[in-house]
């Protein structure tokens, strides 16, 4: 049944339906309402979850690590500075192969302090070893939270999964969301089967050992092997969810009117919605434009991106965060995927929407217009006063 709700509520609803054993969470704008909704569910007796209302995000992820290693299904949520504080432990969670699912309400990192959306927090966690998925809408955030659980817990993967949703734009705006019935979600996520749990006291295991140069490298390589399993598992889970929900999830990204496009935009998050409006408008005028909206950012689907974009003449890659001293991180992902291709588009990089700066239909029009004449390899700023 279709309902209207905020992105917060959509995420909290997915969490309620999944009903993890432990939620350890610390409030931060624009994530707080997720923590608030969930605390209400716990205090109303709607879920059996043990809520750990920690004193910091560092402890949130630490408690998640302890609980997941103990053998529990575990979830959390954070944003911006919260992720920055917990990042040490996100790396550790990934190295322990713990399937912790975390909603990240994307918000600009300080300084200056700012509470609004950009992707600098996600970029900070890019190399932590977690799987990263980006949502365009509250509906997608809901759907990805449920799929994330299965991807994270797949025995070949066993990695944390971060579901990114744009702070305020998605978390605070009321949208139409169609949740699945509780029992269908429960059936879909199934029972969590922990591996070597701490609480199996008859079979003691040592978690988080000290590894010197004689083993560290092999252990990190093994972690990468888990990451390499993600794409196949991602598609398998997505296919099952597509059938269950009837919603059009197919592939690592959404290719929107891309098949015959001459110019295209690559983007992650809610601004994809704005870009679709512009694509539709320009298509009506007969212009061959399209969009590639990234769902799965880590691991990055290099080969599929090449297949989807190689016929395009000009591509604008939009990064919602700076990688100081270089081009944007998404731009580097895309262009490096093409490095051995003879046929490749001319790429331009746009930095947009930092600290919640609005990116409007006009801005996207501007990108498509400039793409005709822009010099490939250029770094441009969208919506900036210079």
């Amino acid at each position, binding site marked *: 049944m279709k309902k209207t709700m905020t992105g917060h509520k959509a995420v909290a609803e997915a969490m309620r339906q999944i009903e993890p054993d432990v939620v350890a969470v610390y409030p931060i704008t624009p994530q707080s309402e997720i923590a608030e909704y969930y605390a209400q569910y716990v205090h109303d007796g709607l879920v*059996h979850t043990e809520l750990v209302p920690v004193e910091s995000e560092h402890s949130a992820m630490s408690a998640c690590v*302890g609980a997941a290693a*103990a053998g529990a299904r575990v979830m959390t949520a954070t944003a911006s500075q919260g992720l920055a504080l917990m990042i040490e432990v996100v790396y550790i969670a990934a190295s322990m192969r713990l399937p912790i699912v975390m909603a990240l309400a994307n918000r600009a990192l300080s300084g200056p302090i700012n509470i609004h959306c950009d992707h600098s927090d996600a970029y900070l966690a890019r190399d932590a070893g977690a799987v990263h998925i980006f949502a365009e809408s509250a509906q997608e955030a809901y759907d990805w939270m449920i799929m994330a659980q299965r991807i994270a817990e797949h025995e070949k993967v066993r990695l944390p999964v971060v579901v990114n949703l744009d702070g305020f734009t998605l978390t605070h705006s009321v949208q139409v969301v169609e949740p699945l019935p509780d029992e269908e979600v429960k059936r879909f996520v199934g029972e969590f089967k922990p591996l070597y749990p701490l609480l199996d*006291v008859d079979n003691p295991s040592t978690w988080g050992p000290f590894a010197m140069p004689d083993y560290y490298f092999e252990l990190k390589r093994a972690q990468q092997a888990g990451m390499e399993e993600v794409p196949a598992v991602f598609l398998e889970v997505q296919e099952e969810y597509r059938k269950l929900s009837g919603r059009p999830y197919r592939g690592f990204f959404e290719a929107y009117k891309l098949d015959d496009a001459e110019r295209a935009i690559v983007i992650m998050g809610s601004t994809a919605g704005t870009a679709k409006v512009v694509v539709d408008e320009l298509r009506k005028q007969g212009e061959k434009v399209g969009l590639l909206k990234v769902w799965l950012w880590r691991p990055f689907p290099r080969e599929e991106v090449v297949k989807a974009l190689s016929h395009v003449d000009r591509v604008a890659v939009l990064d919602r965060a700076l990688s100081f001293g270089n081009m944007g991180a998404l731009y580097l992902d895309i262009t490096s995927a093409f490095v051995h291709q003879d046929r490749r588009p001319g790429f331009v990089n746009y930095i947009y929407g930092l600290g919640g700066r609005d990116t409007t239909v006009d801005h996207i029009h501007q990108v498509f217009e400039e793409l005709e004449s822009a010099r490939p390899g250029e770094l441009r700023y969208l919506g900036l006063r210079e």
Partner: protein
Amino acid sequence: MPNVKVLAKREEAQVRFTGGHSLCAGCAEPMVVRTVLNAIEEPVVVANATGCLEVATSRYPTTAWNVPWIHSAFENAAATIAGVEAAYKALRRAGKIQKRIRFVAFGGDGGTYDIGLQALSGALERGHDFLYICLNNEAYMNTGVQRSSATPKCASATTSPAGKAVPGKPQDRKDLTEIVAAHNVPYVAQASVSHLIDLAGKVERAMKYEGPKLINVLSTCPLGWRTRRDSAIPMAKLAVDTCYWPLYEVAEGVYKINYKPKEKLPIEEWLKPQGRFRHLFKSEEGKKLIAELQEAVDRNWQRLLRKEQCSQEG
């Protein structure tokens, strides 16, 4: 109180912490760890902060731990064990676990007094059911004897060295035991590696309570204190007999001093064998500082006696 026989029998039945680890010769920590684990009858899960104990007992692919054990980071042993305990509560409620399991966290003074204090305070306030053991060797020994907030005043540490202008650490140590007591937890105590049966009794009494418990255990580091390798026990005993490190407990708010030395030894007796205080014995200024240290010990001891008296009188 579990006596030596009981502890030995339990170790015979199940060796929870094995030998073969790489802690230094003369280190007090393995004695404390074995005593703590053997003093608990039920199955235990251990969380360990980064530090000497963690590094020396878990070098991949070996382990000295024959109980479930987790190390995550330096500052988060309390938050990690809180997560384990939360999982236990949830899974027990769901009927997935029947056994009674107990939870113990080990952290050094750096990981407890300093970088882990916030996580510890949070876990105490939330009331998780666990025992935290602070292996207090009074500096960052794992990384090369840097000062911590548990390092005694005037001690020479590598980041508060005895220099020509500044005679060692200028600041007094933090009183962690009292900080924990101020959280109104059911049980908090000070113990020493020199009094292992006292420690075992404290662990046993602590585990009778549901909720957070902490025992702050003075744990000699011959390397960092610059004492003889065979001095772990006698040095810790001197700390107790000088009343520098009183053995006491606060159970449900009531103070009890577990050991009152018949003859309170002067602080010099504890300071003198330690290389980290050697500079104090070389100058008139040093002698003045020793007198100040003695005054501080006396003041703290008197205050503790009064606390015991007041709280027992109700």
